[in-house]
């Protein structure tokens, strides 16, 4: 890509992002995510944690974007943020968790996780003989598509220094590591999915939900009786995730034909039979392409809800 054009683009993205254009910010995330990950890994030594640190750093960047006066400083500004964030991660980890607990395997693929974990540890050990700047340079070399010149700018060292550091670091790693370790690095590259994750964190979640009712006490008791919901210290209903349902009375209430909320339940069949037995008004279990198995149920004031089965987080 033409270098001047790229610079112009980045300047434009920063200006636009500052003016509230979210897509422009996404471009910045996409462009810099692997460079940020390289720095984070060089400090933390664990890809999983380094990804979290990178995410955290981008959220900080987004919040602080208005403090960046000179767009040409974007690189060094991002570098400083991810550097500090990663140091915080290391500090936190030392304080709170023994190393093994800090990275827990996902249950499905313990074997792969173990292989990866061993590979990562071997590489990390081999990298210990390198200075920090060399660690970052070699990571940038493997993870980003950036030319040497840009890597140098990001790390604030000259082109020749980058070249010699990367060359020497590669030699060191090759000497110490048997087998082909380079594909392992390439596997750690961040892609669009990561950029999505960052974007989603900006608008994080819906926290509280408000339900129109005619008789608050009655509906409250009904939810507790049939669904064993807890009561928060504010006196609202609590679902298992800790989110609150506020019941608010209305003078007149015409229940909508749209369901108000869809609740995730652990065993949809079991709940359906229980509610049927409790004589709760409900409809039969159905399957929908998007929400999977579900059924509709009604509270005493006629509001309708969906019960849906546990869906995996990323099946959309």
């Amino acid at each position: 890509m033409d270098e001047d054009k790229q610079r112009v683009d980045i300047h434009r993205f920063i200006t636009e992002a500052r003016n509230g254009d979210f897509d422009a910010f996404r471009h910045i995330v996409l462009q810099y995510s692997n460079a940020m990950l390289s720095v984070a890994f060089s400090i933390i030594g664990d890809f999983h944690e380094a990804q979290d640190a990178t995410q955290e750093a981008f959220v900080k960047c987004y919040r602080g974007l208005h403090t960046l006066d000179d767009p040409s400083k974007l690189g060094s500004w991002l570098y400083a943020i991810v550097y500090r964030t990663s140091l915080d991660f290391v500090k936190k980890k030392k304080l709170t968790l023994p190393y093994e607990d800090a990275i827990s395997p996902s249950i499905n693929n313990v074997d792969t996780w173990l292989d990866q974990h061993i590979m990562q540890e071997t590489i990390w050990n081999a990298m210990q003989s390198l200075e920090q700047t060399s660690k970052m340079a070699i990571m940038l070399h493997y993870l980003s598509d950036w030319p040497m010149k840009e890597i140098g700018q990001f790390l604030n060292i000259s082109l020749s220094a980058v070249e010699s550091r990367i060359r020497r670091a590669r030699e060191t790693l090759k000497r110490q590591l048997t087998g082909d370790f380079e594909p392992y690095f390439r596997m750690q590259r961040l892609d669009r999915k990561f950029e999505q994750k960052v974007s989603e964190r900006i608008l994080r979640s819906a926290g509280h939900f408000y339900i129109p009712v005619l008789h608050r006490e009655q509906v409250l008791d009904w939810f507790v009786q049939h669904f064993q919901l807890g009561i928060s210290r504010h006196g609202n209903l609590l679902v298992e995730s800790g989110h609150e349902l506020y019941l608010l009375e209305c003078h007149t209430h015409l229940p909508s034909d749209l369901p108000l909320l869809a609740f995730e339940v652990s065993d949809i069949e079991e709940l359906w039979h229980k509610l049927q037995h409790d004589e709760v008004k409900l409809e039969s279990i159905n399957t929908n392409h998007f929400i999977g198995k579900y059924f509709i149920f009604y509270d005493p004031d006629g509001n309708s809800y969906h019960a849906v089965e546990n869906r995996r987080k990323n099946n959309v």
Partner: protein
Amino acid sequence: MAEKELINTEEQQATQTPMLKRVSHNYLPVSNVELASKWYKETLGLTVSPRGPAEGAILVLGNGQWLFLLETKEKRTANFMTDQWEGDQYEMFSLTFEVENIVEVHKRLRESGVYIEPLSDQGSCGLQFKFKDPDGNKFNVWQDTE
């Protein structure tokens, strides 16, 4: 609440697991799904699921929760009137979004030209403001300031 009742509630919470795990999604009525999802995407940075249904759209929030937009023929919103929130006949929002950067979100919404109330500092309850989407669905936005 009487003390005995309080103890009962606590016992109940200790022994029983709620059978509703979490809110999986909200349904929002909109007049035009395509325009609405474009607005949510651009203004709030939400991801629009490419596999959404024809008659609606799925927007994904940060914690995997969905906003399910459904096109309705007659004009309507998820809001309702209540005396139990702020004075008589208050137009109530249907949910609160939690954000990490409320000042930015406020700025972005203001620039998009929709109905928006000023940012207010609720002390220990954090920062909040209300807004309406182009269809008039009202929301509360909240940031915990710790």
